[in-house]
């Protein structure tokens, strides 16, 4: 790669739809929001940084994904691991790979082997606090790769898809993001998880600001300032005779707990990390039901796979979310 320590960050806005709680529909939301943005004329790069590769499997045929994973350690490898492996091996900088292009979306495919990089990131993190350039470089390796791909393809929005955990890979991703969006499921466990989510993000930002203030000049650093852009409640079941009670109660609890447990915790670190006007829903997404499965099977937005009524409805919802994202990501 020509220069994995870019002095300038490309203008593409980097966003993670992140919640360490699993099963909240991160991947489905990410793909559909990305599709909505492309339909609004934006260029979107998806980065499948979840070693489970769900996003990649959503967009690419299973047999092709299998081939990719089989050859990811060769010189022709096309996955994120193929790009990052030299950094993990201590062999220098990331190798620039070409993103896959699917229906106008750009994708840096995931790889199960990316989980190996977690261990390295753990060491890079400690080394950053010892003011070692190797540590800062390693921590920002994925960011530098994304920077280069975004610049080459003139990307407007980058979306990271992340695994459901608070490991070092997600830490590096969130600290690279300009914004994060919280997908929230309507259940008690999901609501309880906001507290750990807020605390974890606050700790990451605070810790990284220490590393930044100690860093030598002219080192490419993760910016470490993910701003909360809003949240998207979804997967509420609509029961015919109990609509109001089943989700309006959950929705108001979500509104309240997100502000208290994520917004306020971040604002205690720095007010600009969670502007009050962004502590609101970007949209509401009903349980995708059968459409999620259909969308995944065909690699299409869910408004291209249902009946006319459903399609119109979901298109409106996701275009609405996409427009809000454009409005907030200035």
């Amino acid at each position, binding site marked *: 790669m020509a220069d994995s320590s870019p002095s300038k960050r490309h203008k593409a806005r980097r966003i993670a739809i992140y919640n360490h709680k699993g099963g909240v529909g991160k991947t489905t939301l990410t793909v559909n929001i990305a599709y909505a943005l492309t339909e609004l004329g934006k260029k979107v790069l998806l980065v499948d940084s979840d070693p489970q590769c769900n996003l990649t499997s959503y967009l690419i045929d299973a047999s092709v994904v299998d081939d990719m994973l089989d050859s990811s350690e060769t010189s022709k490898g096309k996955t994120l691991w193929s790009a990052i492996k030299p950094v993990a091996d201590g062999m220098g900088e990331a190798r620039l790979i070409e993103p896959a292009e699917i229906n106008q979306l750009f994708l840096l495919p995931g790889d199960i082997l990316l989980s190996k990089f977690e261990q390295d990131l753990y060491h890079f993190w400690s080394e950053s*606090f*010892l*003011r*070692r350039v190797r540590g800062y470089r390693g921590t920002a390796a994925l960011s530098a790769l994304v920077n280069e791909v975004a610049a080459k393809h003139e990307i407007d929005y980058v979306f990271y898809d992340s695994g459901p955990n608070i490991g070092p890979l997600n830490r590096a991703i969130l600290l690279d993001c300009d914004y994060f969006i919280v997908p929230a499921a309507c259940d008690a466990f999901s609501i309880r998880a906001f507290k750990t989510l807020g605390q974890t993000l606050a700790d990451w930002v605070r810790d990284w600001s*220490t*590393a930044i*203030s*100690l*860093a*030598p*000049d*002219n080192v490419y650093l993760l910016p470490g300032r993910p701003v909360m852009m809003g949240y998207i409640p979804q997967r509420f079941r609509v029961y015919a005779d109990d609509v109001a009670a089943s989700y309006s109660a959950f929705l108001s609890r979500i509104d309240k707990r997100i502000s208290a447990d994520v917004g306020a915790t971040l604002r205690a670190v720095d007010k600009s990390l969670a502007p009050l006007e962004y502590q609101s829903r970007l949209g509401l997404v009903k349980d995708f039901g059968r459409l999620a499965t259909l969308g995944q099977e065909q690699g299409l937005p869910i408004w291209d796979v249902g009946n006319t009524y459903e399609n119109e409805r979901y298109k409106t919802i996701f275009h609405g979310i996409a427009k809000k994202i454009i409005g907030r990501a200035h």
Partner: protein
Amino acid sequence: MSQPSAKERRLVRDLVSHYEKNRRTFASFLVSLHEQITSSGKLTPHIHSIKSRTKEPSHLEDKLYRKLAEAKERNRRFTLTKDNLFLKVNDLAGLRILHLNTDQLPLIAKGLDDLFEEESYMRFEKPSARTWDDESRALLSGMGFTIKSRPSRPSFYTSIHYVIKPNKKTQYTCEIQVRTLMEEVWAEVDHTLNYPHRTPILACSEQLAALARATSTCSRLVDSIFRSHVDLARPAGRTRNAGK
């Protein structure tokens, strides 16, 4: 000294709490610097030991009250604020390098210069030396150190000081002191007796002054022992001039 006003107490409390909130950044700074020094092959052969500490908040509080009192006495404004505290008080993170003899000093100074260069540290100010001893003064100014003296508080303190910053933007600084083990003994005794308040016991002050002379003599002796050791280990006929 007059009692500080409620407003002054609040100011000091704010400054100390600002420091407490940032103390772990200073601590990280020290850990990284300590690690870099101990892994530098150019420095370790000349270093006896390293001590480092972040300032105790209560000591900062004492220092701020002293500065407040000094400002009042001299009819000057007390200018410390949260915005400039870290740039004006440079010993919040302190690291001390102890060595055995004076001949090691130029080697340590060179080793530090190289380390600052390689690790991209910024010098916050020119390295300076504090000494009361004419002979040391000649040696140190010959090595390019600015000699600082404080007529307001005459002291027998002898040490080299560097203040560095991790990068241009940051406000965090770290003070590095370099001195011999002999000087360390004197300074530790002095510190125990005179910090934060000077001992009122005249005999102790006089004994400290005598200890400073003894320290100077011992330093001379240690230097001479090492020079003899080096000279006598060489083949005959190549002894260097002992009167240097």
